[in-house]
């Protein structure tokens, strides 16, 4: 098994398994460049007469640009709102054991049990009362609620990795807590903050359920809602839908590649040393 032949055999099996599992992803890309008339024939696994017509059609017929800008604004807004909060809370949870910290820590774990449909009801009521309903700003707040616990948890892992002795040395040298965080801790934890920001961005970019329930006017639709609307049309234009899906998918996939290596330690909250 350990000879070069064995390795090639494993490689072949691994390629088959991984590619088979990724068939739907492949199919999405292939069908986005397949012309609609092909769909009535027996489908072929390889793209026949590939064209970018579907992409042109959806850019003309649908407000894809608007959806894209809305999604971008919501995702960036979520990162800008949640990261300062997450960084402060994560540092505090990593360094101090107070009652407030224990309660917040428990609340963070507790949020993992809440389904989006349960949270959507009171948030809907709250947004109706405060005028945040049907606003991209409201969506940013709702997404923050949903990404914040995860961001705090993952960032805490990055802070935990910085030895406490460093804080103490800085304090002995006469730094205030603020200076210590700014000059000593922040530079060290910056890669973590970047990774978690990307993670929060992806979560907010992909988010569908809040966007579906908390926003009603079409001008405020994000990509996920726009994409799902293809299905509600009388005759579904499948290649158009796949083209929109491809456009929606590319940004998070590119970002995902940057943070892949941080995922394990982050997701398991340090239960596994990744």
């Amino acid at each position, binding site marked *: 098994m350990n000879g070069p032949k064995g390795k090639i055999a494993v490689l072949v099996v691994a390629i088959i398994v991984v590619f088979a599992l990724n068939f*739907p992803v492949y199919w999405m890309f292939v069908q986005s460049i397949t012309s609609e008339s092909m769909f009535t024939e027996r489908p072929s696994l390889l793209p026949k007469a590939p064209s970018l017509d579907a992409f042109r059609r959806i850019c003309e017929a649908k407000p894809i640009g608007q959806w894209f800008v809305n999604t971008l604004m919501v995702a960036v807004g979520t990162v800008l709102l949640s990261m300062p909060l997450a960084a402060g809370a994560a540092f*505090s949870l990593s360094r101090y054991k107070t009652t407030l910290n224990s309660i917040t820590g428990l609340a963070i774990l507790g949020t993992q049990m809440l389904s989006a449909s349960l949270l959507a009801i*009171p948030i809907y009521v709250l947004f109706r009362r405060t005028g945040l309903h049907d606003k991209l700003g409201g969506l940013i707040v709702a997404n*923050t609620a949903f990404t914040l616990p995860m961001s705090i948890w993952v960032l805490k892992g990055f802070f935990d990795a910085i030895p406490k002795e460093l804080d103490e040395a800085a304090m002995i040298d006469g730094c205030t807590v603020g200076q210590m965080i700014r000059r000593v801790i922040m530079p060290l934890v910056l890669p973590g903050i970047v990774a978690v920001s990307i993670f929060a961005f992806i979560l907010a970019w992909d988010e569908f*359920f809040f966007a579906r329930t908390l926003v009603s006017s079409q001008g405020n639709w994000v990509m996920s809602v726009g*994409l799902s609307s293809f299905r509600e049309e009388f005759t579904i234009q499948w290649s158009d839908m796949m083209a929109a*899906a491809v456009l929606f998918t590319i940004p998070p996939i590119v970002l995902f590649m940057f943070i892949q290596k941080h995922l394990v330690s982050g997701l398991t909250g340090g239960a*596994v040393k990744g």
Partner: protein
Amino acid sequence: MVSRMRTASPNAAAAGNKASSALILPAAMVMGAVVIYPILTTMWLSLTDAPLISLSPPSFAGLSNYADWLSNPEFWRSLWITLVYTFGVTVGSYAIGLITALLLNMEFPGRAILRGLVLLPWAIPEVAAVMTWNWMLDYQFGIVNSLLGSQIGWVTDSAVAPWTVTIVTIWKQFPLATVVLLAGLQAIPRELYEAANVDGASKLQQFIYVTLPGLKPVNSVLVMMLILYTFKRISIIYLLTGGGPARATEILPVTTYLEAFKYFRLGSASAVGILALLFTLVITLVYSRLFMREEA
């Protein structure tokens, strides 16, 4: 405690406590505003007859919403569907996660690339994934029926749809298991395998006596995550079947959603949402009692 003792001075410790509160308070307040407050609101709503858009304040209805749900066979059916779905998805995700992790833990050229590629189903947006599955499973022109030469109503036949949503969810979720199990496999000391080799253990014996026990530390966390993520998962089923056909795939989060945003009964929706939350809590507590105590 030891590190606290070594802090520069008592003043510094006090400053630290103040800083601690100042740092966590903003996040704690936001979490309170968008998580704790909503839960309390939902609990209150569940005791009223609030419609979705109310002009007058809702009137107090006591526990009648809960009584209605608990005496409604549809609720128990939904709960059963939720449990079966959660169980199926958890087992399936774990199994495929384990197979892929074992495969990608072997040494072969190009391993790093395949390790990245196997995560794709998880990395692509849920809505894009489900839309693709919708197309693949299309009754008339979908690739699945075409390849199988079959005429199966994957999302329209109430006997098949529960399987369909389970398989699609497994497909979307298994890479999480792959990542975690791969990390778990890498944490098993090589010496254990070498020792087993010296003792003449077969590959299968090594798997049973070295690999499986070696995964124990990650298993408890992973299975808990899989259960929690599946139990509250809504978008996949919502977009594939909408809970149908004939409510065959209506898990409790879907029931909650439909009750609130389709039938406009906020009070009743809140009650079923809270009931689902209680079941999640019970499962979590029982699970952590059974499996997580020894590692804690």
